[in-house]
């Protein structure tokens, strides 16, 4: 691994996040921290069951509660637990809660659809893919055919900062705060709802406590807050409680994946048939699964069905369709490796589509100690050790954004971006790009993000924010630096600034130098203002954000309890800017992927459709003791590359890496997530019964 540094890049930066002090002291303001004077509160009235009809509700009692302004029931039937059937508006949260209780709603529930495996169209009844015959032909000519079916569960979004909005409509303008992945979309949605132009809405979102794909537009919370604020010409606040957050803000849909793949005896995959089913809401779609992907599967006939379930709707969630696909794919890769009697690492190398990832696989194997891997199920003792592999990549093209850089006479450099920092460290990344390119220390820097008044940024989805904005920030930094160098050149009576350099806060010429601050005093106006919305020479060739992970697990075969010991996570991020924020993204993704693989699961009661674990104790999320040693490795390419995607790719390989490690440990694959003790023990006893 090596990396060629030059003066056009920002990297090797170990400084903490810019907003570390605010986050640690609690002074960072989230949407829920805004309590405006004279503010109203509103919430939705929600259905208790899956497929249900409202039989009765005591609306009059609810309306008569002190401080309740409105109780409106808008529909009688609902399709899932948490479905919105009306709303309440009141002077206080207490009044809202009392009104909900006073409603004493009674529902008549029909038998709900809760199980993907029961609701799907059977494999043999699915409409065949166009190339079905071709794929069958390939299978027919293969030496070996391997098949398996894999299942993944519904993972709820469960953002720590709930979906929320505070709106103040003032007649011909509005100020609003919302928790969002897109300031621009949120503002535009609000403007439409309020009957205003976008420029009449001032929208703020300085910090976000988790979005992961569930917070793009103004959403239901913004809509209700806007409607109430407009109606009463007062500020209004709508904030989901924990249960609402679990029920109605989206999820990663569950999946079933059937794979039948043919291969040659020497281990080359030739093709086959893949059917996937995704569990979506009571209507609509969104359950796609990215299977096949990454490895070279040859000729594949793929069919997919979205299956309706009477539960909350799916939404994009950190690499939608990918982690669940790679769970199935990696297990399938291991199974095929067994069939051809090959080491799974070697088998992957043989069928890998990316040369870069082949190299990453080699390095990762060394880091985890792959050579210590025992054949499946053969490690000694009741606590069995296993190793597994997962891979990923991520692609996107350059896109639009604008970055502002202001240099003030006192030397302060202000970086402006209307994109939002959804917790990723975006603010730090963009600031570090500008200041390290300009050769300035952090204390010269002010970064402002997360407001609709700032130069527009992209929606933070598809891992594009840094990818789109970093080249613009480089270009803005270059322009700003050159403007100051030109002032200095003029002062020093040089023909041009070409011989000048800016390093460590000093501008250095052939035989003289000047402090940055003093150089800035040379400007005549208040500031030099640069706005950059082009990539210029900084729009370099992107990488594929390739990811390779190796997991080491210990499984107690007497109890079925899994202990993930270590995950080595290699990640290509293109040009690395700030080590802390990069490692933070990788480790966060590994924890989220582990939590998905081992614990998280939306449980709908089969008789009522009620989600029985819509809270954070029975919906199980990995805790500190469950987190393994994580070794993030920032992969360096030999060529010059642009800043690239990092948000999504590192979550993709985790379930596959852990599941294959578990299978290696216990000698049998558990093909249904989450990998609970119950499933491990069942798989082990089935294996024993067979033998």
């Amino acid at each position, binding site marked *: 691994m090596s990396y060629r540094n030059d003066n056009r890049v920002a990297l090797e930066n170990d400084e903490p996040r810019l907003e570390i002090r605010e986050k640690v002291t609690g002074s960072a303001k989230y949407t829920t921290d805004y309590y405006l004077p004279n503010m109203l509160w509103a919430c939705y009235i929600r259905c208790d069951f899956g497929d249900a009809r409202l039989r009765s509700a005591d609306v009059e009692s609810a309306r008569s509660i002190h401080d309740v302004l409105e109780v409106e029931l808008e529909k009688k039937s609902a399709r899932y637990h948490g479905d919105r059937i009306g709303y309440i508006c009141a002077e206080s949260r207490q009044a809202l809660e009392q009104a909900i209780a006073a409603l004493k709603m009674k529902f008549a529930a029909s038998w709900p659809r809760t199980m993907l495996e029961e609701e799907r169209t059977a494999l043999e009844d699915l409409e065949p893919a166009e190339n079905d015959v071709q794929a069958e032909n390939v299978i027919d000519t293969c030496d070996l055919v391997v098949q398996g079916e894999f299942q993944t569960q519904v993972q709820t979004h469960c953002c720590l900062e709930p979906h929320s909005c505070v709106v103040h409509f003032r007649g011909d303008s509005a100020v609003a705060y919302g928790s969002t992945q897109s300031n621009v979309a949120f503002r535009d949605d609000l403007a439409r709802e309020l009957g205003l132009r976008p420029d009449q809405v001032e929208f703020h979102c300085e910090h976000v406590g988790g979005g992961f794909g569930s917070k793009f537009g103004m959403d239901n919370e913004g809509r209700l807050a806007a409607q109430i604020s407009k109606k009463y010409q007062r500020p209004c606040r709508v904030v989901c409680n924990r249960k609402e957050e679990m029920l109605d803000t989206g999820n990663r849909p569950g999946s079933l994946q059937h794979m039948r793949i043919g291969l040659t005896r020497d281990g080359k995959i030739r093709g086959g048939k893949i059917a996937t089913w995704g569990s979506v809401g009571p209507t609509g779609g969104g359950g796609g699964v990215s299977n096949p992907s990454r490895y070279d599967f040859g000729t594949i006939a793929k069919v997919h069905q979205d299956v309706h379930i009477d539960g909350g709707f799916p939404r994009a969630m950190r690499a939608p369709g990918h982690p669940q696909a790679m769970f199935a794919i990696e297990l399938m890769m291991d199974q095929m490796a067994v069939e051809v009697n090959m080491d799974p690492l070697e088998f992957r190398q043989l069928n890998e589509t990316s040369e870069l990832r082949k190299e990453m696989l080699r390095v990762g194997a060394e880091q985890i100690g792959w050579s210590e891997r025992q054949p499946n199920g053969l490690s000694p003792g009741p606590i069995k050790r296993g190793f597994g592999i997962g891979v990923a990549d991520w692609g996107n093209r350059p896109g639009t954004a604008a970055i502002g850089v202001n240099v003030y006479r006192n030397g302060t450099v202000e970086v402006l971006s209307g994109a939002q920092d959804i917790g990723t460290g975006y603010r730090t990344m963009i600031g570090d790009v500008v200041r390290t390119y300009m050769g300035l220390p952090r204390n010269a820097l002010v970064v402002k993000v997360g407001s609709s008044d700032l130069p527009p940024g992209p929606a933070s989805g598809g891992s594009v924010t840094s990818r789109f904005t970093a080249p613009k920030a480089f270009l803005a930094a270059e322009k700003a630096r050159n403007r100051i160098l030109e002032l200095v050149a003029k002062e020093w009576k040089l023909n041009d600034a070409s011989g000048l350099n800016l390093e460590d806060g000093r501008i250095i010429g052939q035989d003289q130098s000047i402090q940055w601050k003093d150089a800035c005093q040379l400007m005549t106006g208040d500031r030099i203002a640069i706005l950059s919305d082009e990539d210029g020479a900084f729009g370099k060739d992107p990488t594929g954000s390739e990811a390779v992970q190796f997991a080491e697990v210990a499984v107690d075969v007497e109890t*079925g309890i899994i202990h993930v010991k270590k995950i080595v996570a290699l990640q290509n991020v293109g040009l690395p800017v700030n080590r802390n924020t990069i490692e933070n993204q990788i480790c966060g993704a590994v924890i989220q992927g582990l939590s998905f693989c081992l614990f998280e699961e939306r449980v709908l009661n089969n008789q009522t459709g009620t989600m029985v674990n819509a809270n954070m104790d029975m919906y199980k999320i990995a*805790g500190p003791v469950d987190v393994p040693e994580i070794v993030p490795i920032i992969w360096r390419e030999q060529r010059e590359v642009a800043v690239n995607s990092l948000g999504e790719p590192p979550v993709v390989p985790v379930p596959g890496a852990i599941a294959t490690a578990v299978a290696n440990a216990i000698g049998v694959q558990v093909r249904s997530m989450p990998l609970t003790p119950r499933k491990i023990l069942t798989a082990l006893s089935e294996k024993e019964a067979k033998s």
Partner: protein
Amino acid sequence: MNSFDYHVAEELSAALAEYGAGQATLKAGGMDVLDLIKERLIEPEVVLSIDRLDQLRYIREEQEAVRIGSLTTLADIGRSELLARKFNAFHSAAAHAATPQIRERATVGGNLCQRPRCWFFRNRELHCLKKGGATCFAVEGENRYHAIFGGGPCYIVHPSNIAPALIALDGSITIASVESGNREVKAEDFFVLPEDSLYAENILKEGEIILEISFPMAPLRSATIELREKQSFDWPLVLASVARLKKGWHVCLGAVAPIPWISQSAMDVLGNKEITLELATVAGEAAAIDADPLEENEYKVQLVKVAVRRALMAAAGLEVPSWN
């Protein structure tokens, strides 16, 4: 949650008087009571907090007994060198329960009296048998965490980590009320099965407050093994507390039955014998003999065998399999 008046008791006698009057809901650390209020499972008009009654917060060694005040927190127990040394089963059950934050608030009295974690019970939407409804949703529903012993008509598991150890160590509970003064009951007589009492999990009557728990004497050996899905912020799937008292081994299981489940079958096998791997294994098997699992919780039978075996091995100082 509904609005309620919040009273903070400064004196035990005042607390007993107010609680005895029957209007107030009692709160100690509040970990469970607040959960219930937030989900509107209870809608108290008055919450009486006793968490400032420091006279109920102690761990005291006397000649004949060790006494622990009911407001002692699980974290206090975790910090007690005396309990770690002499009452390992109890100490480790408390010291590893839940999370450090919860242990700092959770009290002994509250832990013994916390309501079940059954996910049908905990949801306001579902009006199950225990809440006066007509159905136990666990019977045909998602019952992976429910009872494998002693169930019917309700299949909760008792959620307390410390109760099985208290019983295994032959502990007692001292209860006070204005009406009948103080009384001491054996811990094993404190809890009641749903077939005897569907709506309450213990014998406490209106107005009664737990003052303290006590152990008559230190066991020769004791240990608790807890098997969990997640290693932090979670309840056990199965827990086994074992203790060798003068007359022989006691075995009590947690998270498997509506009450802490005394495993007579395991105790019959063990008698007062020295533990070997073989004996521990046979005792584990015996502990699972009468299990009657539901559709999704058969795996807990295996966990009972392992938990009992390992708890006995740990108590006997034999090596127990571990990750490290």
